[in-house]
C-alpha cells in the first residue's frame, strides 16, 4: 500500500468526475486588510470524502463560506457541475462548527431538522416527517424529537445539526470543523457517526468535504486530504488516504500507514513556509 504524494498521481487513482472545481480563489475582506486566501485551486470528485486541513486561522472557514456561496470571493471561482456558484446551491448543505448558534433554540430537535425542508413544496408532510426520522436515526437521536437544543449536550447538539444537513439530502455535505467544540470522548463518538454517514452518502454517490485543523481526524475519515499553507492560504499538498475500510478508532489509528501519513503531513505543514520562497510576489502587499 502506498500513498500518493504527488498531485499528478491523484488523477489516476480517482476516476470519478469532478463535481466541485475551486479555481484560483482569492479573498480579501477589505482593501486595507491582508489577503486570506491566495490562489486556491483544487478539485473534488463525486463520491469522495475530502478533508481540508491547515493551521488555525489559515482561512479554512473563509474557503468553506466561499464554496457554499454565502461569501463572494475577491477573485477566482467555485463551480459546481461546471456552473459558477454565486448563491447557496440547493445541492449543498453545511454543518457549522458553532452548533449553539447554528441551531434554533426556540425549535424542538424535530423542527430544527425539518427547518431546511420547510420551503420545499415538492415534498408532502409525510415525506418530510420520514426524512427527518431517518436523519435523526442516522445520527442516533431517535427519541429526542421533542427536546429543545438547550436541553442537550454539545455532542448531541452537533448530531442534531448533522441530522439537519442530512434531512436536506445534499449531493455535497460541507462540514466546518464539526468536532472542534466538543470534548475528546464525544468527538470519537461523533467521528464514528460521521463514518456511518459517509458510507451512506457515498453509497448514494454523494460527496463530503470537511474542513479541520486536526490531522488525525482528517486521516481517519477522509479519502483524500488537501493540505493548506499558513495564511494567506494556498494548496500546499494533496494526498490520497488509502487506509483500509471499514475504519475503526483502534486499528486504523495504529496502522503503520496512518502514522506515516501523519508524520508526513506534520512535515508538510511545518515546511510550507520555506517551500513558498521569500521572493514570491503574491505574499507581499
Amino acid at each position: 500500500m502506498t500513498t500518493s504524494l504527488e498531485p499528478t498521481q491523484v488523477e489516476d487513482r480517482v476516476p470519478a468526475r469532478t463535481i466541485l472545481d475551486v479555481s484560483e480563489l482569492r479573498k480579501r475582506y477589505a482593501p486595507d486588510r491582508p489577503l486570506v486566501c491566495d490562489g486556491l485551486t483544487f478539485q473534488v470528485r463525486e463520491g469522495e470524502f475530502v478533508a481540508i486541513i491547515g493551521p488555525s486561522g489559515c482561512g479554512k472557514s473563509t474557503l468553506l463560506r466561499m464554496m457554499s456561496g454565502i461569501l463572494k470571493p475577491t477573485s477566482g471561482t467555485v463551480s459546481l457541475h461546471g456552473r459558477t456558484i454565486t448563491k447557496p446551491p440547493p445541492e449543498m448543505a453545511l454543518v457549522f462548527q458553532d452548533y449553539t448558534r447554528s441551531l434554533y433554540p426556540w425549535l424542538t430537535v424535530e423542527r430544527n431538522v425539518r427547518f431546511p425542508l420547510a420551503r420545499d413544496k415538492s415534498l408532502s408532510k409525510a415525506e418530510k416527517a420520514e426524512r427527518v426520522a431517518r436523519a435523526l436515526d442516522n445520527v442516533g437521536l431517535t427519541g429526542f424529537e421533542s427536546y429543545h437544543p438547550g436541553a442537550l449536550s454539545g455532542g448531541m447538539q452537533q448530531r442534531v445539526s448533522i441530522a439537519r444537513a442530512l434531512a436536506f439530502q445534499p449531493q455535497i455535505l460541507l462540514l466546518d470543523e464539526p468536532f472542534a467544540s466538543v470534548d475528546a470522548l464525544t468527538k470519537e463518538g461523533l467521528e464514528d457517526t460521521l463514518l456511518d454517514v459517509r458510507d451512506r452518502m457515498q453509497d448514494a454517490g454523494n460527496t463530503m468535504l470537511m474542513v479541520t485543523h486536526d490531522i488525525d481526524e482528517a486521516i481517519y475519515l477522509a479519502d483524500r486530504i488537501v493540505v493548506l499553507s499558513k495564511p494567506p492560504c494556498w494548496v500546499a499538498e494533496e494526498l490520497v488516504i488509502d487506509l483500509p475500510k471499514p475504519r475503526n478508532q483502534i486499528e486504523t489509528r495504529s496502522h503503520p500507514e496512518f502514522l506515516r501519513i501523519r508524520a508526513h503531513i506534520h512535515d508538510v505543514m511545518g515546511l510550507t513556509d520555506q517551500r513558498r520562497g521569500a521572493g514570491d510576489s503574491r505574499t507581499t502587499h
Partner: protein
Amino acid sequence: MSATTAERVDAPGADRPAPTDRRRRPSRRWRSAVNLRGLVFAIGLVLLLELLTATVVTSVYVPRPSEIGSALLSELQRGDLMSGIGITLGAYLQGLAIAAVAGVVLGAALGASELAYQTFRILIEFLRPLPSVALIPFSILLLGVGTTTTVAMIVFASFWPILFNTYYGVRAVNPVAIESARIFGLNRRQVFFRVQIPSAAVNIAAGIRVSSAIALILVITVEILTRSGGLGYYIVRMQVAIRTEDMYAGIFVVGVIGYVVALAVAGLERRIIFWNSDIREGGDR
C-alpha cells in the same frame, strides 16, 4: 418523568440532557414567588408600622395599616374604587398593547431596512428624549381630557423601549444563525421572519418588560394631572377630601397592580422565550 429518565441513560453522549419540560418551571417560579423570608419581613414591617402609628406617630395623615386595610375593604364594596381600577387597567392595557404592536412592527421594519433606519433616525433621536408628560397639554388640546389622552400618553412613553429593543434584537442576530438558514436556501424575507424575528423575541420581551413599568407610571400621572378618572384621580380626590385612609387604599391598589403586572410579564417571558437561560433565574430587573 420516568420515561425521560430512561432516555437519558441510553442517550449517546448524554452528559446533561435535562428534558425541556415546561411543567417544571412553574414549580421553580412558585418557590421564588413564595419567598418566605421576604413575606415574614413584609408582615413584620406592617406590624411595626401598626405599632408606631398606634403609639408614637399620631398624625391624621399617617393612618394605621389596619385602618387602611378596613378602608380598602369598605371602598372595594362601593363603586368609586372599583370603577377607578377598571378605568386605569383599561387605559393601561390598551396603551401597552398599542405600544407593543407599534413598537414591534416599526422596530422590525427599521431593523429590516437600513434605508428606513437612516430616514427616521433623526426624528427618533429627537422624539425619544422628550418627556411624555410634557406632551400632556398638547394632547389635551388635541384629544380632550379623557381616556384617549391617557392612552395616547401611555403609548408615547412605552413605545420607545419596545421599538429600540426590537430594532437591536433584529440587528444583533448572530451571523451564523442567519448563514445556516441561507445555506438551506431561505431568501432574505424568510430569514427575517423565521430566524431574525424569533431571535429578537428575547429583546422584544425585555422591551415590553421595561415598558410595562413605564406605562403604569404614565397612567397614574396623567390621571392625577388631568383629573380624568381612574385610580390617579381617585387618589387626588381622597387627598383633597382628607380621606387619608381611602387615599392610601388607592395607592396600595396601584402597588398591587404594579406587582401583579411584573409577575405576569416575567411569567409570560419565561413561557414564551423559555430557551433563554438568562431569564430562568428571574428577578433581574
